[in-house]
């Protein structure tokens, strides 16, 4: 019944139309890599080079040493010294500094006398994320310094080899520098694949209906399944090429290396692409015009893939109800799978559950759409 001889001309025709429409082809291939560059550099959660001003009322060797440890780290940049209380009120609003460290007059004297010293730290809270991170760094570094002083003091009192009860040494695996880009690349692949497959599939089907060409095809011996396979195949191929381009860009600019199996990555990508195609088919059964299809396709692909997949916001932080919704979101599984393969090098044995869910979604949405389409594509 289904004949390759009749699918081939449809694929060829579709490719001809895609190649002729250079702008759309460019959107499908180049925009993903471009988006990666944009997101990779702009959507950066890493906080570095925070301008830090100092009001050093002690002006001792010890106070300078204390401040040096902040400034010598990559997190803070020295933004100048302050000489009066009044000046503190101006440096933060004028954006000269986002953090001010105030050292009390008898800083070194008190420390040497083994008395506790209070350090005042002012943080600009206008950007909550940066403020929280900066405060965290400051606390950690101050504690480090203060521990060192205690240890030195103990040594001076005659303890030979002082030990701390707990030596806290965190090690972050898979992304030791906690680079956002490494985390972004897998998310972007999912996001871009979903957008491009849903939009292009739905548009290409709705266009045939809008132009009336579907009628000419429907009076030919073409089976609806042949038409559908022929029309979607080119977009599967283009999506895979776009994935390769994203991976190359990710490697070249952000040093993201695929640690796991490339073959597995492509198989998973293929399954995910079918989720997108199914969703695109569904959109085409609902929308009658190309602009309607475009809007609906963007909505159903953008929202779940960006918001509910763990790409923009961690799923663990979402309310329970929304967490439940994410279970029917294929992007959720795909992102998990991609991160596991790219960053951790995990194999199928650890990912079979996610793969299964994603496959079920692909089959389910295709079956639903196919059922709706079979009645509406050709016959009214």
């Amino acid at each position, binding site marked *: 019944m289904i004949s390759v001889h009749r699918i081939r001309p449809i694929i060829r*025709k579709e490719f*001809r*139309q895609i190649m002729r429409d250079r702008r759309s082809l460019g959107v499908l291939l180049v925009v993903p890599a471009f988006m990666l560059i944009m997101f990779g550099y702009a959507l950066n959660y890493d906080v570095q080079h925070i301008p830090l001003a100092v009001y050093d009322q002690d002006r001792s060797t010890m106070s300078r040493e204390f401040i040096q440890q902040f400034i010598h780290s990559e997190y803070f940049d020295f933004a100048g010294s302050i000489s009066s209380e009044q000046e503190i009120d101006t440096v933060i609003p004028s954006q000269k500094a986002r953090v001010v460290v105030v050292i009390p007059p008898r800083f070194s004297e008190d420390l040497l006398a083994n008395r506790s010293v209070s350090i005042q730290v002012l943080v600009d809270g206008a950007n909550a994320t940066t403020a929280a991170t900066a405060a965290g760094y400051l606390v950690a570094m101050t504690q480090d310094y203060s521990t060192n002083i205690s240890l030195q003091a103990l040594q001076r009192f005659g303890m030979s080899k002082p030990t701390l009860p707990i030596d806290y040494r965190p090690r972050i695996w898979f992304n030791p520098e906690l680079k956002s880009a490494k985390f972004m690349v897998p998310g972007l692949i999912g996001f871009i694949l979903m957008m491009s497959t849903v939009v292009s599939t739905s548009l290409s089907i709705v266009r045939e209906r809008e132009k*009336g060409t579907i*009628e*000419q095809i429907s*009076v*030919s*011996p073409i089976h609806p399944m042949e038409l559908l396979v022929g029309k979607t195949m080119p977009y599967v191929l283009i999506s895979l090429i776009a994935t390769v381009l994203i991976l190359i860009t990710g490697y070249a600019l952000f040093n993201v290396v695929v640690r796991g199996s490339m073959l597995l990555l492509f198989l998973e990508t293929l399954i995910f692409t079918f989720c997108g195609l199914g969703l695109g088919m569904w959109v085409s059964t609902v929308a009658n015009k190309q602009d309607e299809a475009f809007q609906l396709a963007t909505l159903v692909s953008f929202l779940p893939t960006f918001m509910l997949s763990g790409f923009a916001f961690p799923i663990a932080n979402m309310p329970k109800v929304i967490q439940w919704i994410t279970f029917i979101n294929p992007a959720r599984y795909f992102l998990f799978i991609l991160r596991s393969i790219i960053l951790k090098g995990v194999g199928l044995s650890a990912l079979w559950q996610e793969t299964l869910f994603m496959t079920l979604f692909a089959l389910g949405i295709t079956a639903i759409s196919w059922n709706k389409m079979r009645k509406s594509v*050709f016959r009214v």
Partner: protein
Amino acid sequence: MIDPSNTAIAINGLKKSFEETEAVRGVNLTISKGEMFGLVGPDGAGKTTLIRMLCGILVPTEGNATILGYDLATELNSIKPKIGYLSQRFSLYPDLSIDENIEFFAEIHEVKGYEARRNELLEFTRLTPFRDRLADKLSGGMKQKLALAATLIHKPEIIFLDEPTTGVDPVSRREFWKILSSLLEEGITILMATPYLDEAERCSRVGLMSNGQILLADTPQQVKRQMKGSVLEVIPSNLNKATDTLKKYSEVIEVQTFGDRINVVVEGNVAADTLTGWLSKAGVETKMIRNIQPSLENVFIALLRERSEEEPAHA
């Protein structure tokens, strides 16, 4: 009565409803092989719906048809390779060239070695010089000829044409008709819907469709004989006054206006002199008056009016 082996299309009580409206309300019609059947009627008469059902695009609500001996409801797959359909609006790919469009339709119909047939069709439709041009860049007439060429690539035995010359310039129209005549010589059966009565006049048979039904189907000559009374063509000095005056006489069945002249349909043997007398009594001068052969248009307008008087409830 009808030789089944010679029947191209046999329509049996075909009906189609869309939600509230009944577009086709019971059509019975038999079209022989090699015939050119013209379907005429006002907009919304159900011509397009009927054609689309016969092509398998729409599923009939009731009734059935056989096409080339195959059952439309159950043997559509055997019918499809043998028919061609040209829809009302241009429905080929605007971003593909003439050659590519024809190639596509040849291949989905699994036509082997279509190149020779394509050259022949392009020659036939005089599109050869434009074969690399994108369909979008063609004129209306050329588009229609391309669509016809694509429809003919798989050598269908029946072609369904839905107002193929609407919006086509007169020269291209004439060319299009030349092509259709040579197709008929090859033995192809043509069913076409047309809004032009001069086109209908050239068909071997015409069917008048109105309100989802075929009111009559016969050769153009026979249809004209259905006309009750005779037709007089008059050029009066005052068109409106003449029309109003003549309508008062019971012998006058109908007055139809055609530009500066009126066609007066009269009962039996009302002579030209009688008519001139009536007009001059009302102060209207008769510049010209003659007896004319009723045209298809006269007949159809008369028939449609008769119908609407019979069943005015139809809206």
